[in-house]
């Protein structure tokens, strides 16, 4: 089903954005499952990767995703205070804030890297976040600043 945010479906050869989504197992991954089970229709452009906790996300995963050609990278986890491992998401918040600042500093288009808090009950929110992301990425076009060049 066409993305409701997509303005002109007749444009052929349009680049389909690829999003890599690191989802924490306890909240966001469950949230994305809820979106599926509720049959919410949303863009299928995000490849989900389940991780134990956003605190376990190494900045290298994000760099590797962009190096391999991801147009956008999403890291999503439990709301502050709800982390299954107590503090993981607080640590992630600090670390990934710095990653975002650095990527912007060197000129990667702002907001290609995003973070969200999505709980296991927020299936609708997850779908919205992905839809919004994909819509923004369509406008930006393919990511070729950090993509591997040969």
């Amino acid at each position, binding site marked *: 089903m066409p993305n409701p945010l997509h303005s002109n479906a007749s444009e052929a050869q349009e680049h389909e954005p690829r999003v890599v989504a690191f989802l924490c197992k306890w909240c966001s991954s469950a949230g994305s499952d809820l979106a599926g089970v509720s049959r919410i229709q949303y863009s299928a452009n995000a490849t989900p990767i389940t991780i134990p906790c956003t605190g376990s996300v190494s900045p290298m995963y994000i760099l590797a995703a962009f*190096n391999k050609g991801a147009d956008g990278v999403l890291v999503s986890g439990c709301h502050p205070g709800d982390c299954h491992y107590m503090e993981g998401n607080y640590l992630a*918040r600090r670390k990934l804030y710095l990653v975002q600042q650095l990527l912007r500093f060197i000129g990667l288009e702002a907001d290609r890297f995003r973070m969200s808090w999505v709980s296991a009950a927020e299936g609708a929110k997850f779908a919205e976040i992905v839809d919004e992301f994909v819509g923004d990425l369509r406008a930006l076009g393919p990511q070729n600043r950090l993509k591997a*060049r040969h």
Partner: protein
Amino acid sequence: MVNVDELRSLAAELLEQGQVRSLIGYRRGTAGVLAEPCTIAAPGEAETLVWDPTCLNNLALFLVEERKQQAAASAPDKRPVGVVAKGCDSRAVSVLLQENYFKREDVFILGVSCEGTGVIDPRKLSARLKGRWPTRVEFAGEDGFKVSAGGDETLVPARELLADRCLECREASPRLNDVLFGEVVTERGFDEPFRAAKAAQEATEDARWATWERHFDRCVRCFACRAVCPMCYCPECVVDSTTFVNTPGTSAEEKATRIRWCERSANVSESAVYHLTRAIHLAGRCIDCGECERVCPVNIPLRLLNTKLEMEAFQQFEYEVGRDFERPSLLSSFRDEDPNSFIR
């Protein structure tokens, strides 16, 4: 004023009495005007120690080397190592202590103050002399530096020769020390802290990318920036991943699909992975000694990547690197008030 004779006497005394097993300091180099690092073990060698604006090296790096050698030694010498440390160098020692790389009693710090100015940037000096070779550079108090070249001696204002990181330095004397030579010096009023990083982020997004794309393209991957950084002490760097276990049963497919964070090729995308990884691994650990930028053969402004993150750490998390080695590290701690609005 740092009394170099007193520094030499103390060094000789420490070695004579066996209070330190060796002492890392600066001596005159054999080529060019810059001082070079030296490790002395005999009291008589203390005579060769120098202190002048060409003492650029961060000697904390050699503490890391010493520690690695001791760890591998069969009968390690438990006495501390003496080290001559400028303000920035002492902050490097502080970070290493914070990370338990060694213990406080393993190092004896002979702190030296930067005489109201700091150390020079050799590229600025050589550009200024337009081909003439400097033979000596000396401190001249707040007026700047006395530069001797081709028989002439000139007084050069500090701002024209000071290393960029000295212009932004917030504390030009080593707070962490066992002995302090010279006066306690804080900000010197040349530039505001993080001036260069602030200026760099004013450019448009496209301009910033054009700049960094050019720098990543010029990088030859000599890894000097990593080699000279005291904080890059990992025995195996993540971008070098070489030691995978191969057995006779390892298939070609498995070998080809092993994680390689970045390829050997020195092109924009791979060099970007290297530099960005290194910058993130230094977040909350970089004390801006500026050595990475100084040693880069093609003069990539690496300081900008690191000071940008230190500026964020300071502004957003109230974290100052190397201030207090008993405080938990930047990335192993958090506050409830940490920025949250960037998260959807």
